[in-house]
């Protein structure tokens, strides 16, 4: 891939007027205050890289890598610059041109092979129960979890022993008259770390006239790879998924994971495949993709029967960056919560500020990630909520860790879990 010819690099770099508006919204810059972490600093560095004023060194990669890719800057930029895409493109360029930038096993192998990823999670979970931490470490899976190894292990003590895939069938028939055939894109995070979300989603969908198919042969959506500069790997993964998913005749493709839906979105498909042969197929796929909450509200228009027994419960909601910023979806998850009888939505301050998880960021930049998380937790705790909700497994993982870190005894759930509970209550 020719870095200089990528659309954001070609069309957007010159549009940056260095106004600094993005400085005022970036969660990393808010902590550090140094221009090397400012979004406008990243844009500048990408330009230096393009113009050959700096070499694709580890040092440049490190500076760019401080970004969470939370997209807050991009949605606030008056010049319409996708700062995060420029950053990702530059990381990829460095990755391709500098053999010493870490080509970890994790991204190139483990995360591209779902079966291996799942078995690692199982080994890890079993190993932990047996106290065999060193075995757990060998799976390499700790690397994708928050914190350095010690911290990661702490947070891993409740890794589910069964993945969603092992708990769900490939084909799940509608339990009332069938309205839609829905492809369920089961992301790695949900599958391995939040399987209950998938189970709840399938429960709710099948109750509402959807036949839910979870295609067997799907791979990671590729977003973690983009974030880590491995765009070619992301392209391969996406191309595979496009082939698999387009072979079915789905009415919709739904996912509970904000990162997956943003990876499958039109915008990201254009970023990965603009001008390539596969572009049309990619865009055709993205037309069908909807976030689960959007599907439940806009397509199914879910309404719940009032029950006398409905328990009153205070719930707060955290906006995942990949939903609120990348796809501007903020109302649907809230509307869904409001439609569940008994739920009182208590907004936290700055609900759409990143939680600092951002996939692998919490591992690669543990301290920064924790600073951002601590702010988020203060805002969440201030609401006095009993349940903290969000729509992304990476956020669920990070926020659960935050609750533990702050001794805050609440559940961290996807709204669909509350919905499913309500049906079952």
């Amino acid at each position, binding site marked *: 891939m020719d870095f200089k010819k990528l659309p954001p690099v070609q*069309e957007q770099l*010159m*549009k*940056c*007027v*260095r*106004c*600094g*508006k993005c*400085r*005022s919204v970036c969660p990393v810059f808010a902590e550090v*205050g*140094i*221009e*090397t972490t*400012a979004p406008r*600093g990243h844009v*500048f*560095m990408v330009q*230096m890289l393009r113009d050959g*004023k*700096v070499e694709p060194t580890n*040092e*440049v990669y490190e*500076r760019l890598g401080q970004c969470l890719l939370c997209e807050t800057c991009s949605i606030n930029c*008056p*010049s*319409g610059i996708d700062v995060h895409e420029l950053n990702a493109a530059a990381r990829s360029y460095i990755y391709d041109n500098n053999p010493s930038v870490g080509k970890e096993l994790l991204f190139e192998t483990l995360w591209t092979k779902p079966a291996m990823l799942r078995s690692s999670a199982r080994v890890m979970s079993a190993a932990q129960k047996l106290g065999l931490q060193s075995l757990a470490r060998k799976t390499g899976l700790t690397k994708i979890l928050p914190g350095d190894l010690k911290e990661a292990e702490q947070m891993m003590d409740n890794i589910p022993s069964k993945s969603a895939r092992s708990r769900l069938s490939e084909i799940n028939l509608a339990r009332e008259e069938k309205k839609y055939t829905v492809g369920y894109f089961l992301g790695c995070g949900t599958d391995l770390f939040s399987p209950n979300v998938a189970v709840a989603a399938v429960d709710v969908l099948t109750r509402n006239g959807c036949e839910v198919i979870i295609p067997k042969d799907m791979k990671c959506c590729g977003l973690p790879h983009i974030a880590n500069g491995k765009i070619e790997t992301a392209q391969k993964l996406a191309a595979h998924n496009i082939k698999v998913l387009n072979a079915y005749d789905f009415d919709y493709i739904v996912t509970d994971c904000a990162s997956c839906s943003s990876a499958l979105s039109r915008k990201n498909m254009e970023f990965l495949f603009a001008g390539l042969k596969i572009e049309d197929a990619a865009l055709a796929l993205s037309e069908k993709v909807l976030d689960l909450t959007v599907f439940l509200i806009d397509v199914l228009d879910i309404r719940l029967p009032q029950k006398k027994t409905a328990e009153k419960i205070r719930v707060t909601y955290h906006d995942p960056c990949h939903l609120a910023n990348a796809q501007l979806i903020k109302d649907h998850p809230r509307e869904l919560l409001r439609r569940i009888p008994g739920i009182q939505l208590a907004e936290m301050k700055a609900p759409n500020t990143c939680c600092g998880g951002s996939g692998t960021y919490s591992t690669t930049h543990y301290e920064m990630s924790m600073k951002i998380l601590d702010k988020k937790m203060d805002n969440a705790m201030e609401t006095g909520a009993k349940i903290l909700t969000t729509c992304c497994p990476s956020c669920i993982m990070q926020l659960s860790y935050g609750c533990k870190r702050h001794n805050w005894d609440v559940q961290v759930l996807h709204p669909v879990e509350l919905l499913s509970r309500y049906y079952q209550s």
Partner: protein
Amino acid sequence: MDTSQLKQELVQLLGKDKVLTQDLDLMYYSYDSSFLTKLEPAPPNAVVFPKSTQDVQKVVEFAYQNRINIVPRGAGTGETGGCIAVQGGIVMDLSTWNEIIEIDVKNMQVIVSPGVIHAELNNELAKYNLFFPPDPGSSMMCTVGGMVANNASGLRAVKYWATEPYILGLEVVMPNGDVIITGGMKARCIKNVSGINLTKLMVGSEGILGIVTRIRLRCFPKPKARGIAMAVFDNLDDAPAVVMDVYQAGILPSGIEILDSSAIKAVNDFKPQIKLPDAEAILLFEVDGNPPSVEYEGQVIQEVAGRKARTVEWATEPKRMAELWEGRSVTAAASARVRPDGSRIFAGEDISVPISRVADTLRALRDLADQHGIQIVNYGHIGDGNVHTAPVINPEIPQEVEKVIKFVDEVHLLAIEMNGSTTGEHGVGAVRRAYAELEHGKAVEYMRKIKESFDPAGIMNPGKVF
């Protein structure tokens, strides 16, 4: 002193957490929001992040003894290269020293360190029903120190003027390391005519006379009500005439903004749903104060503007106000997108002319743009004659850059010819110093004398202002 020794010494003075020394990191301090530094970024030899007057003083004393240039910097949102080490030296980034030291509600004043962000200060003050009225468009990102140095103002300058009248006193580290307090060492008063007014001299001096380390500023009670009027004109000349009529009717709005046909088109292309009426000019009036007075002033504006305007609409309901104002609030973004293969640039963007000549100036700007074959978007604070011109070019095409540089030069000359100034709010910095003699004549000699007496070693932000 060679740069590696310089870096070592600075680390020794402040500790390594407050100094940037790696060349790669220094590159990030080679730009501000000016077009100049986009074309020619100029990295410093070191960057320091002081967190106290002592830190500042240590670095300045060291720089003075070793004759090393020192350049204060806030958030780097200036449009003039003011915070750039154009002749090398140490950049002193004061934006991480951001403390609201005291809100003295009883005396209607607040004391801050230089790095406090304007919007954040006003958020705090709002808790006490107070506000610091100057309102630059960069409020969310610029520092109060940068506002003091540039005497920044914004669209409410019509009523509230610029930063200067609000500054009651300053602590300044002088270019030789002395620390002085202007406006009275212990003073907490508001009125004060004692001594030569060094506060006034420092405000707007763009960091060439010393480094502001503490700011005592006056706050106003926050107005309780607001209203917006939009007047649409078929004839450009009617717009400034109506501004005068409104003043004559005894009304002083907080802001009066103009969008000319180029801006109206840019906004409608960018966001068709805003549906600005197709016109020669649109005026937006903002009035603030107490509810009855706002209502009264709104009625007068409606009546007065109605005599010449095609339509006038008045709103006090928040949603409608936001809708009326939306055209203005997206102008900057809209001008950025006039050309898919281009970008607006910040150059020649801030001339100021007499109100009576705004219409002539807007026409002359369009003619100049046509002559040079450059697309522009015009808008501005017509209430005080401040015209913002946004040239839109592809900055990566050298011929376009060459053309725009000539255009911008003529824009500055036009301002002087119209009995105006090359800059109404953004300042001179490195980009407008060539016009100093033409604009100020012999007065520049006296400006130089002041500079030399404050900074005999010539180390404080050289290459700026004149």
